[in-house]
């Protein structure tokens, strides 16, 4: 994949995975992102992002934890990788740096 950077939605998903620690999978990530961002998200959109992040090497995953609530199907649990963490940190740093250069905090002027 050419662009190894993070998209906005990707960043949200990545953050959600971090927050959820060991219980990050499709439904929980969706709920987490919805909780914080306040928008309603399609399950399919979460999945495609999770798989993409995994392809980029920011996430790793394993199957596990079937429950009756899921009709006895296992879930794919996602975890953040070292590179993922770095990428998140880098994105955060870039922002932080840029914030410092804003002369005055006067929104809307």
């Amino acid at each position, binding site marked *: 994949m050419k662009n190894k950077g993070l998209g906005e939605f990707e960043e949200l998903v990545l953050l959600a995975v971090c927050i959820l620690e060991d219980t990050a999978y*499709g*439904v929980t990530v969706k709920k987490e992102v919805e909780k914080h961002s306040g928008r309603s998200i399609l399950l*399919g959109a979460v999945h*495609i992002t999770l798989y993409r992040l995994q392809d980029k090497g920011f996430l790793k995953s394993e199957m596990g934890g079937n429950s009756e*609530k899921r*009709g006895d199907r*296992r*879930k794919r649990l996602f975890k953040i990788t070292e590179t993922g963490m770095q990428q998140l940190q880098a994105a955060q740093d870039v922002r932080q740096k840029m914030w410092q250069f804003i002369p005055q905090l006067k929104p809307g002027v």
Partner: protein
Amino acid sequence: MREQNSLPPKLPDRVLNWFLKDDLLEEISGDLYEYYMELGDIPEWKKKLFYCYHLINFLRPFALKKLEGRQKLNNYGMFKNYFKVGFRNILKYKMFSFINVFGLAVAMSVCMLIILMLADQKSYDQFHENKERVYRILGTPYVGSVPYATVPVPLSDAIKDRYPIIEKSTSLRKGVGGDAIYKNQIADLKGYFADDSFFEVLSFPLISGNKNSALSLPNSVVISKDKANQLFKDENPVGRHIQFEDRGLRVLDIDGDADSSVDWGTFTITGIVDNDAIKSHLKFDILMSISTLNRLQEDSLIVDNSQKWDAYQSAFSYILLKDEVSRSELKDALKNLSERQYSDLEDLSEYSFSSQKLTDITPGIIVANEDSFRLPELPYFVLSMFASIIMIMACLNYVNLSVAKSLSRMKEIGVRKVNGATRKNLMFQFLLESILTALLALVISTFILFFLKEAFMNLWVNKYLNFDLNVTVSVYLVFTAFALLVGMIAGIYPALFISRRKPVNALKSQIEEKKGKWGIRKVLSVSQFVFSLLFIVTSIVIYNQFKFFTEFEYGFDSENIVNVHLHGNDHELISTEFSSVPGVKNISACEYIPATGVTNLISLVDKRNEDEVIEMLHQKVSETFIDNLGLSLVAGKGLTTSASDDELTIINESAVNKLGFENPEEAIGSIWKTRENSSLKIVGVVRDFRATLLISGDEIQPMLMTSDPENFNFLNVKVSGENPMRVVSELEERWKKLDSRHRFKYEFYQNELDNTNLVVFDVVSVIGYISFLSILIACLGLLGMAIYTTERKTKEVGIRKVLGAAEMNIVLILSKSFMKLLLISVLIAAPLSFVVNKLWLDNFPNRVDFGFGTVVIGSLLMLGLGLLTIGSQTIRAARQNPVESLKDE
């Protein structure tokens, strides 16, 4: 809490299984499942909706099954290969493909036209809100009669009051038709009296006005949008007053034969109906509130039918059944009602009611007294039958040619089989090819349809049928489905046949040609030509009949007579004015134009048996009528206006016999009483002439003519032969001076007579076109077979020529089997077509002579075309230089 434990719907899950990658399936379906379970306390259907919405959103490239893997790749690849091979085959054998595609296209276009017609008819009366529960009541006056669309006026109320299964009912009483006048505008309106439940039962779109109250008050009218525009232009019509003068116009009238106008007073417009936006079997310009009737009946402007159960021709009745009421309950109620009302009525003791679902009216069974022109079911059956025959013939061509052609594809089939293709695979391949051909044909037939539609709409009968043959998207879908079906039907036999081949034989190119196979192909070919000849002969016969009708001797002189509609004006006044126009030779007046379809009857009391009546045609004519139409008096004198107590009358020769006289002279001076008890004195007898339509009967009916200027509706103006149009325009000028309100309406008598036969010409056109198509398709098939045979025999022809055979001999050898085929067809079809045509013609009035001559002409025509087709190929083959045909390999 409702249904907390409900599970996600099964069907969407299966869809997911179908499209989702296998390795993602478990986790994603699990996530969806969990999502569904956590949706919480919302209605089930909403949950399902959300579930499906999220599920469908997995239709993204990342999640889709890839067409990869051994099995899938092969399937896809083979599919691609079938398409490729199919297309290559179509392109490689251009002539064969053309024959197949063109034949199918031509046949399909006819079928498509019928589909269009049916689609149009099916779209009638679909706009009614309660169309599933609305029925029209039909009345059958006696056992064995065609049901009447009309019923007595009191039915509508009686049925609603007595039977609780009926929610609402409405009645449309016939009898509104005349001129509406507003300021200086005038419009002719035809329609019905309607009650205030009209808009509750039927959902005609009211664009302005209140549908609950529009028809409740007396003297209120609802008119159609286009007539409102005509009367009011830009003004808002609702609430305005119009003057209405009834002229006795009826909804079905085409050219508005009318009585003199009667003033019905002032009416208020309470609503506008947009009749252009909908398609309904009911057509009207005006609905007058039924409460107006009281006033009109009191003033004796209209007959009071409101309680007459025996006046079964006066109203239409529509009922709305309550929910969940079955048709049989309605049937019982109607049976009960007719027994109650009619068992005591002597004349109508057999009268019975039946019901017709609103959506079954168009297209529907033949019903008498209908107020709109439409084709009953029967012509559709006949047309569909013709179209199917043509379609089957085209499919047979395909079968014939592909089976023949399959010999040259033996190697391909062999290789496929050796490589593991199953019979199913091969069948699929060949079916795909036939479907491909059919789809190509679909494209071409859409073009043909365009022209066919134009030609069809130009048929005379379509002036009255109002077909709307626009092709909509849904109709295209039907067409495509139809093409797929045709492809499958045409392809199934070749597919079965070809896939049966054994691979060894196939590879060795060994032709397993059993006698039987050729037999089938010959039978198919022969049957095509049999049908063709049948159609050809029939169309020639009908054409002859048409010509016979147009040249028919009516017994009166219609040349240079212009019939002018009086529109209720005084005939004396108009004829005096007209007679001063140069070029006018003679003028007479009459009640209706003879032999154009309108007749009146009169009943005389039989002198020999007072209980019996003698029915005769009755025509009211002026003194000059007999002279003007060139009728000759056999005995007695013409009509004079001599005033005595007895009305004077002239009868025709048939009437002389009917009244029991030996010869015309005897009849002169005798006096007859009518059933209404007025007496008629016969003063003259005219030679028989034809006053009814040619198709209505063989015999000239007895006729009686009286003079009654009150009832004259037409002037017969005899004009000079040179430049009659100038005289007509002068007449029009004069007309405008006397009557500024009505249009000058005239028709040349000869045209009018010709027009009565146009329906026969329509039949000629349709059958003619069908026979043209059938012979075309049969010849195309023959052409294909001839090409194929000559191609296969190129080497044989070459060798024969080298050994010294003459061209003529070779042509004969090549054509022999085909000629045999044609001859067999003629031998079967000629007697058959003779018998079939004799059969219908024998029941036809005023028929043309039909003998073997017509059959011979048809046979020769078909033989000629067939030989031409074969000859084109065989002669070419025979002429070929043997060097060319023998040098390759």
